[in-house]
Every structure is written in structure tokens, then in C-alpha cells.
């Protein structure tokens, strides 16, 4: 892919790009389809239920049926909603979710753009989604969705700060923001060991970024009925759902890359197993963790949520930066 990027643009290379992008899209959609199925199954088992088992063998086609249902539904727009914004919001939420995947190195060879500032690109783009969420909350002209949208905005902006701060340590250690370099730098030891504090902050902040339990306040169904997407139905709703799960895919991939050594095997002797297998394995563990937490945890309150981000996570993340900086300068012989 990288050699393609260096070549002069031609019809051939353009075609390749389109094919690769469609391929990635298919993989991600496949992931989303079965992540939802898997989530429902896993949570079902944890909660003494069976989960979907009717559509297709073992219920494997359940999500397909659900998506088909959403697509076939009438497109409803509330009468007093802001037409333009109401239509724009799902796209705003959804487009960046896909765009961030461009920089993910899934293995040694499977990757798309090899950006020097890959990490920054991810963080910058994922920040756009919150616009979609606020827009949706505002444009729906519904009080519940307005509260949900504003909560969401406050939450995502607050947690983005510790999220970014927690990865600074890794950038300091690696000396690069290129995701491939970050993985390569973990040949000896995965970042989770030297950057454990950063990891702890990151995984909590990521949970809040993803709006998942225990930080699922924006869509707290017991308080706000449905949150920012309460007025959305049919395909527009599907876009929000899709964005949510694609972000989970993105965040899982990012955590694997940043802290678990990406496609690197647990031990060099296990090198014969292809990198992508390792990647998927680590990634799946994270995704499973998500489901597990969802089945177990209650929800935070909105004021606790904010004070936790600013009073606990941020200082810890800053401390981590300081600690890493001191250690790195010591190793470089500055003291």
C-alpha cells in the first residue's frame, strides 16, 4: 500500500485504493455485525439468557435481519426538527469513525496510510464525532435528546484530555507518533509494562469516549429514555449505532497497537503465527472486556463523571508524563 502511495496517480492506483477501501469497509461492517451478535450472546450468557438464536443457524443472521429492518423502516423526521442539521448529524458522527481506521496498522503488511502523525490523526478525527452528537441532540428538538447531547459533549471533551495525555508517555518512549514505529518499539517489552499508569488512564478514558458502561450517561435509558438519538429511527439511527461500534473497533485496534504490541507475538519463538492472528486475538480480548463491563457495572452520575475526569484522571495522566519524561531523560544520559 505504501509503494502505491508513492507512485504517480493513475487510474490503476486509484482503482486499487477504491478496492482496498471497500475491502476495509466490508471487514469493518462484518466486525460490527458480529460484534453486536457476540455482545448480545455474551451478555445474554452472563445474564442467564440465551441471546439471539432464531434468525439463521445459532442466530448468526440476527444482526443482518436487524439492519434490514432498520433500512426498510420509514424515514421519520420530527416536524419541528431542524431539517438540515437533523440530516447532517448522523453523517458527522459516522464519517470520522471510518476515517480514523485509515492509519491503523493491522499487521506488518496490512495497513493503509502510513502517516508520521498517525496517533495525532486518530485523536483529532475522533474528536469530530462529538459535533455529530451535539448536533443530533440539538436538531431533534426534544428535551431528552438535548440533555443527552449536552451531557455527551461535556463527557467526550472532558475525557479526551486525559486520553491524549495518557498516550504522551508512549510518544516520549518511542519518539514517534507513527503507529507502526510504536509497535516496532515494543519488540522487547509491551508498553503496558512501562506505561501501566498511562494504560489505566487510557482504558478508562477510552470507555468514556466510547460512551459505554459505566460512562453511558449520554444514552442513559433509565434517565433520558434514549439520549441524543431518541428521535432517530431507521437508517439514521443505524448510522449512530454503526459509528459507536466502528469506534469500538477503532479503539480496540488503537489499544492493541499502543499497549499490547500490535501484531507482535507474546514471545519471539511464536513468530511463525501470522501477525494478523495476534492482532485479532489481542483485539478480541479488549472487545470482550467491553461486553463484560457492560454486563456488570452500574452507571456514574454526571457530576461524578466530570470531577473524575478533571480531578483524578488528568492529574494521574500528567504525573505519568512527568515520570516518563524523567526516566527517558535519565536513559538518554541527561542527568
Amino acid at each position, binding site marked *: 500500500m505504501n509503494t502505491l502511495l508513492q507512485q504517480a496517480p493513475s487510474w490503476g492506483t486509484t482503482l486499487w485504493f477504491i478496492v482496498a477501501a471497500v475491502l476495509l469497509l466490508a471487514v469493518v461492517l462484518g466486525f460490527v455485525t458480529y460484534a453486536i451478535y457476540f455482545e448480545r450472546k455474551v451478555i445474554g450468557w452472563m445474564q442467564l439468557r440465551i441471546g439471539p438464536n432464531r434468525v439463521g443457524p445459532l442466530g448468526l443472521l440476527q444482526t443482518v435481519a436487524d439492519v434490514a429492518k432498520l433500512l426498510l423502516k420509514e424515514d421519520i423526521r420530527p416536524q419541528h426538527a431542524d431539517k438540515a442539521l437533523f440530516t447532517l448529524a448522523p453523517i458527522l458522527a459516522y464519517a470520522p469513525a471510518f476515517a480514523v481506521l485509515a492509519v491503523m496498522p493491522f499487521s506488518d503488511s496490512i495497513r493503509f496510510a502510513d502517516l508520521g502523525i498517525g496517533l495525532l490523526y486518530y485523536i483529532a478525527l475522533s474528536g469530530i464525532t462529538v459535533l455529530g452528537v451535539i448536533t443530533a441532540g440539538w436538531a431533534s428538538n426534544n*428535551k431528552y435528546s438535548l440533555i443527552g447531547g449536552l451531557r455527551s459533549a461535556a463527557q467526550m471533551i472532558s475525557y479526551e484530555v486525559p486520553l491524549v495525555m495518557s498516550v504522551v508517555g508512549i510518544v516520549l518512549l518511542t519518539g514517534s507518533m507513527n503507529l507502526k514505529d510504536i509497535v516496532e518499539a515494543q519488540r522487547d517489552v509491551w508498553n503496558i509494562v512501562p506505561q501501566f499508569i498511562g494504560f489505566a488512564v487510557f482504558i478508562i478514558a477510552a470507555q468514556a469516549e466510547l460512551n459505554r*458502561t459505566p460512562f453511558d450517561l449520554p444514552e442513559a435509558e*433509565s434517565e433520558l429514555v434514549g439520549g441524543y438519538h431518541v428521535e432517530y429511527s431507521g437508517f439514521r439511527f443505524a448510522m449512530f449505532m454503526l459509528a459507536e461500534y466502528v469506534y469500538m473497533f477503532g479503539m480496540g485496534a488503537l489499544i492493541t497497537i499502543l499497549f499490547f504490541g500490535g501484531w507482535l507475538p507474546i514471545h519471539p519463538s511464536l513468530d511463525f503465527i501470522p501477525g494478523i492472528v495476534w492482532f485479532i486475538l489481542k483485539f478480541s480480548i479488549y472487545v470482550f472486556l467491553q461486553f463484560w463491563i457492560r454486563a456488570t457495572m452500574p452507571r456514574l452520575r454526571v457530576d461524578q463523571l466530570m470531577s473524575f475526569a478533571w480531578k483524578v484522571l488528568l492529574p494521574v495522566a500528567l504525573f505519568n508524563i512527568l515520570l516518563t519524561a524523567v526516566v527517558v531523560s535519565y536513559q538518554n544520559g541527561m542527568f
Partner: protein
Amino acid sequence: MNHNILTTHVDTSSETGLRTEEMLLNVGPQHPSTHGVFRLVVKIDGETIKEAIPVMGYLHRGTEKLAENLTYTQIIPYTDRMDYVSAMTNNYVLCHAVETMMGLEIPERAQFLRLIAMELNRVASHLVWWGTFLLDIGAMGPFLYAFRDRETILDLFNELCGARMTFNYMRVGGVKWDAPPGWIDKAKEFVQYMKKELNNYHQLVTGNEIFINRLIGIGKFDTKTALDYSLSGVMLRSTGVKWDLRKDEPYCIYDRFEFDVPTATEGDCMARYHLRMAEIEQSLRILEQALEQFPSEGEVMGKVPRVIRPPAGETYVRIESPRGEIGCYIASQGKDKPWRLKFRRPSFTNLQILPKLLQGENLSNMVAILGSIDIVLGEVDC
């Protein structure tokens, strides 16, 4: 409905010139956390509740008026539909009132069956509360665990009286059905199982940091307020008043068993959570003793005249339901139908404090506070 709430306050900040406005938010009657068809109109400033007005009556069926045209036995199924989560206590309070008026003697075995049914129902009711309360707080799992265990109780009831929720089990003078063979053993088994399971509940939820932070200091009130609002049950005991009718005015055969009345002094949602959990434990304790002492044979129906005609006069009895003090007032003119019948429903009375508790609270606390009151809408609206 108080119409003052409909005027919202508009303010313009003198410093920034920003215009702020209070917002009216209608919660319910179709809302996942109002536990039925309960409606709240809240005036919010940001996410802070300025004022809340509960609107009830969506489930009003006029039980008390209907009762005036029904014979006493015919009223019993109507009581099932009041507090449908704990119908056995409702059955009992009506029968108890009529029996008090007529001075009836209840056979031993029937007394035991009544007590066992009521206590099992208390456990079931608290399980429903535990599950739905956690669901309000945002945890989905506990709901299903609680309902699994409640299911066992419902199965037991099903065997006992052929119904899972609307039992229509008790009669004036005794109970309708005797326990089928092996039922007592099954109940014993359940009590032992539930004791262990309760431990798991505590491990899953009680120590959870998020959960504790959500509840401590929320929905707080003191003893005086509780008494002023005529609160009863856990709502009252959470402020330190040791008042449990099973102990203080023993009815049925509660005076024969050993159990404690758990109290707390904090008066907040956390205290109420702990009390209800402790009550499950105490109920299991009573059940254990009662099942052990259960008489091996005997009648389940006392000597009751074919047509029940309480003597003219009035009577009021009260018992301890899982939600508080449930009372039944009967005014009789010596006929087979009551001249006037009135239920004191604990859910309804306990709910009155809600607007006071909600004032100044965060919107997220609303569901926690409402959940901790533990209302059943069938009983609120009656």
C-alpha cells in the same frame, strides 16, 4: 395540578449577557424508570431539579368504590391487583380486618401458611425492588439475577395457589388451598439457596464504588420529616425509628419467631438499600423457623359462616407490607358487603415526600430517589 410550576423563569446574566431559561421536562407516564404509569413534571435548570410535581392516577380503578358492591370474598382478588408485587400481604390485610370484626379463630396450619406466604412474598418483592433499582442506576445484570430467584418463589406460589402474581389465596377464616405434598421441603430448599445467593448479590453490587457513590447522601431526610410525611416501612426505619408492625403490633403469628428489625440512621438511599437487603435476610430467618415448626396436619379453613356478615361497626387494622404500613378500614352495617372500605396504601403515602426530596437534586438522582422509595403503581393509584 399546581399551575405555578408551568411558569418558567427566564434570566439574563448581567455579566455575560447570556439568556438562560428553566425547562419543563415531562417524565412519564411512559418512562422506563417510573416503575409503571407514574408521571412527574420537573422544572429543571440545567440538570438541577427546581421543582417536581408528581401526577398520579393513571392506574386508578376505583377499587374502594367497587368493593362496596362486592361480598368480602369477592373483594380479595381486587386486593391482588393493588400491590401486585406483594399480593399476599394485601390478601391478608383484608381478611385480617374482616376476621377482627367477626372475632374468628384461625386454625394453626392456616396461620403458618399465611405467614410463610407473606414472608416469601416479601422476599420476592424486595428482589424485584433490588433488580429494578439497579436497573435504574444503570446496571442491567442484577435485574435478571433477581428475577431468576424470584421465579423460584413464583413457582412455589404457583404450586400453592395456582397463580404467580394475583394469588387470591387467602380467605376470611383461613386459606383456600393446603400446601401440596413436598411443598414445605421445596420452600426450605429455597431458603437455604437464597441465603447463599444473597451473599453473591452483595459481592456483585454492595461494594461497588460507583454504586456507593451514586447513593450515599442522596435523598436524605430526618426522622421528623419522615414522621411528618407519615412515612412507614423502610422509609421510616432508614431514619432510625425502630418501627415494624410485625414486632410492635404482632399479627398472625409473628410473635412466635425470632427476628430483628434492621434500622439505619443516615436516612439516605444507601441506608434504604442496606435495610431492604437486611430485611430479606430477616425474612429468610423467619421462614426458616416457620418452615421448621410447620404443623404436620390440621385444617386450613376455620369455622366460618357461609355468608360473611361482619357485625355493624368499623374497624381498622394495619400490617407491615414490604413497602410499609398497609392498613384496611372497613365500615360495616352488618350486611354481606362493606358499607365503606378504605385501604391505607404505603406506596401512596411514601410517595408524597418525593417532591421535597427532588428539590435541588441532579436529574440523575431522580431515578435513584424514586427507586429507593419503592413504589408499586397499582397500589399508588389503587
